[in-house]
C-alpha cells in the first residue's frame, strides 16, 4: 500500500473511531504511563491505596552558617491552602495517604519559608517511611531522607 493511501486509511480510522481512540488514551495509556514513567501511578486512581509517615525539618542559616529551626506551622501560612495541610503539624511524624507533591516541591516550600526570615539560606529535609505500623508480616521500612537548600532572594532577606 502506498503512503498516501495508508495515511488516508489512518485518517479515516481516526475519524470513524475517535471516541475509541480517546477511550484508549484516557482509560489505558495515561494511567499506565503514569505507572511506567513516574513509578507512582500519579494518574492511575491510586487514592488511599497506600500510606506514608513523614516529618519535615526546616531551618534558616545565618551569615555564620549557624542553623536556626523554623516551625513548619509558621511556613504553612505562607503557602497555598491546598499545600498548608502538608506543613501544619509536620514537625512531628504524621501519617497521610500520599506526599507526592511535597516530595516534588520541597524547594518551593523552602522558598515560601524565606518570607520574613532573617536567613539568606533555607534548608529543608523530608523524613519519610512508607509503612508506619509493625503489622503481621511487615515491618517498617528504613527512613528515607530528601533534602533541599535554597538561597532566598535579596528582597526577602532583611538584615
Amino acid at each position, binding site marked *: 500500500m502506498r503512503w498516501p493511501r495508508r495515511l488516508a486509511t489512518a485518517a479515516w480510522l481516526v475519524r470513524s473511531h475517535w471516541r475509541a481512540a480517546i477511550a484508549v488514551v484516557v*482509560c489505558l495509556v495515561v494511567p499506565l504511563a503514569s505507572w511506567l514513567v513516574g513509578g507512582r501511578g500519579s494518574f492511575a486512581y491510586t487514592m*488511599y491505596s497506600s500510606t506514608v509517615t513523614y516529618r519535615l525539618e526546616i531551618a534558616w542559616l545565618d551569615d555564620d552558617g549557624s542553623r536556626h529551626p523554623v516551625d513548619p506551622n509558621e511556613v504553612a501560612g505562607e503557602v497555598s491552602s*491546598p499545600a498548608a495541610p502538608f506543613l501544619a503539624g509536620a514537625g512531628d511524624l504524621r501519617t497521610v495517604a500520599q506526599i507526592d507533591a511535597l516530595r516534588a516541591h520541597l524547594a518551593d516550600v523552602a522558598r515560601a519559608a524565606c518570607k520574613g526570615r532573617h536567613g539568606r539560606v533555607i534548608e529543608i529535609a523530608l523524613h519519610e517511611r512508607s509503612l508506619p505500623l509493625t503489622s503481621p508480616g511487615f515491618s517498617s521500612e528504613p527512613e528515607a531522607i530528601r533534602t533541599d537548600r535554597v538561597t532566598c532572594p535579596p528582597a526577602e532577606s532583611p538584615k
Partner: protein
Amino acid sequence: MSARSLGYSRAALGLVLLVRTTPLSRVLPWPVSHVATPLLGWPEHGFQAAWGGLALPDAAVMALCVLRTAAAVLFTLGMWTRASGTVAAVAALVVLSQDAFGFKFTLYTLFVGTWLLAISGSGRHVALRPSPPGIGPNPWLVRAFVASVYAWSAIAKLRGTWLSGATLRALYQAHYLTEELADALFATFARCHAAAWGVVVAELLLGPMLLFRRTRVAGLVLAVGMHVAYEWTARPDVFGWVMAALLVSFVGSNTPPREGVEAPADTESITLPVGKGLEDTRVRSAR
C-alpha cells in the same frame, strides 16, 4: 433512554463541578471540600508549585478560573455543551496543574469526566440549547472511563501492604476513617484484612458488572453501596458524588445509536450514517 441518561449525567456532574470549584462548596458539610479562595485554584501568597515548573502568571490563572466557572455554568445548563464542557475541563486541568499540592483524584476524575461527557453527545437532551443531531449521544466513552477508574483503583491495591490490612489500619489510626462504621470495620487487624480484600474484590468486579447488560443493575447497586460506605467511613471529598453522576450514564439502553444516527422517538430529526462517497443526509422524522 441512554441518551437522556447522558443528559441527566451531564447536568449532575456539571452541578458538582460548579459547587466544588466555587464558594458554593462552603455549603457542603465536609470542610475538606471547601474552597478557601474566590475560586478553586486562585493564586495565594505568590506561592508556586506548578507541575514541571511550568508556572503561569497569576493573572492568567485567575482568568482561567473565571473561564472555567463560566463554561461550567453553560455545560450544566446544556448550552453549547461540547465546547463549554471541553473549555471547562481544559481550564480546570490547567489551573489544577498550577499547584501540585491541590491535585486530588476526585478533582481529576471530575474534570476528565466533564470532558468525556461533553464529547459524548450529552447536550442532546436535558439541555436549554440542545446540541444539533450531527453526532449521536453515545454513553460508551463515559462508561469505559468509569469502569477504568474502578479497575485502576483495584490494581493499585494489589500489593502486600494493602491486602494485609496494614494500610487500612494505618488510615484508621490516622483518623482518615472515622464514624461508627469505621469503628466496626477497622477496629482489629483481622477486620482490616477482610475489609481490604472486600474492597479489592468489589472494585475488580465493578467494571465488568457495569459493562455487561445482564449484570449492570447488580453492578449499579454494588457501586452505590460501596460509595455510601466510603462516604460513611472516609468522606473522600465529593468523589462519591462525582461517581454517582457518572454512573447515571449506565441507566438505559445497551445499544446506543451508531455514530451519526439518532433514534427518531427521541428527536425531531435523524441523521443517516455517512458512507463512502455519500453526503450527510438529514431527514425530517414523521413526528
